[in-house]
């Protein structure tokens, strides 16, 4: 029974991830692609060597983009569903729907925003190909560190709550998270490989669109998965039972 529940949650998580991925794809295509195209134009205008095109731009910006964003959505949807199965009833007195949205918000911060603030997304032509190894290692390190610290902060908050109350425990846990992340920001190496004459407004637009894509993805996931999880775990209509409307004869 319980194993079946986990399986059902996992399937719903991946489906919700696919749905959220579709929403994110719309954001990526309309908000992100114009900046990618501008950045590639910049790259071509400033590069002396002309690379052979293996996948055409029209495929990269449609089918290629869709593959990447949808697989990303499904994969994180599955992981988030498993995290949800663990968090439900353990993080606090939240309904499945609220737990899902809370989890998605935390995932957006821990998986994306916190690493982004140290190592932001870069458009084509920003980034030295020779440092790809170092940049990849640092980015994934920052992501893993942020997720582990977020889990650690949650456990810390749960431990502190009985002693100092939920409010101060939450404030304390968030503060502890911020301090350790701040130390990581301070001690991890700085990467700045933006070409001198790269337009600042283009970089800004690209990075804003990257943030928007993730916000759409995780926001959409939280709402869709929350709805599916609520219906799976609480099949009765909550509002009718809570307001007692059903019992009152007219």
């Amino acid at each position: 029974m319980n194993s079946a529940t986990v399986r059902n949650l996992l399937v719903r998580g991946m489906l919700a991830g696919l749905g959220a991925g579709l929403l994110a794809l719309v954001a990526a295509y309309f908000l992100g692609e114009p900046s990618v195209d501008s950045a590639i134009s910049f790259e071509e205008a400033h590069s002396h060597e002309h690379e052979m095109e293996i996948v055409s731009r029209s495929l990269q910006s449609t089918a290629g983009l869709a593959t990447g964003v949808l697989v990303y959505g499904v994969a994180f949807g599955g992981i988030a569903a498993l995290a949800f199965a663990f968090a439900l009833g353990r993080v606090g007195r939240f309904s499945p729907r609220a737990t899902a949205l809370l989890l998605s918000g935390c995932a957006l911060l821990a998986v994306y925003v916190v690493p982004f603030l140290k190592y932001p997304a870069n458009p084509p032509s920003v980034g030295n190909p020779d440092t790809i190894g170092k940049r990849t290692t640092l980015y994934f390190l920052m992501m893993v560190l942020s997720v582990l610290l977020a889990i650690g902060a949650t456990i810390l908050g749960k431990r502190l709550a009985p002693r100092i109350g939920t409010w101060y425990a939450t404030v304390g846990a968030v503060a502890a998270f911020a301090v350790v992340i701040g130390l990581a920001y301070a001690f991890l190496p700085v990467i700045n490989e933006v070409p001198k004459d790269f337009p600042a407004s283009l970089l800004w637009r690209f990075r804003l669109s990257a943030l928007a894509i993730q916000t759409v993805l995780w926001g959409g996931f939280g709402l869709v998965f929350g709805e599916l999880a609520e219906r799976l775990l609480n099949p009765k209509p909550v509002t009718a039972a809570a307001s007692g409307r059903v019992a009152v004869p007219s």
Partner: protein
Amino acid sequence: MAQTVAQPTTTTPVVPAKLPLKAIAPWAVFFGILMLVLLYFVGAEQGATSVVSGSDVHEWVHDARHLLGFPCH
């Protein structure tokens, strides 16, 4: 006291039952790893490290990799 009996369905949320770790673990191990492999192919394959030779995977997910925030060439 009689009032509380008459109103058993208040708005106080019921704490959802915890799912036992034993039920979650097998799914988490198998699918967790599978999902991470998928993320690796979207985010890093044929960048810093390569499992498949060439650069077809990299070129195919190129735009997604940039827009999802992964370091890309």
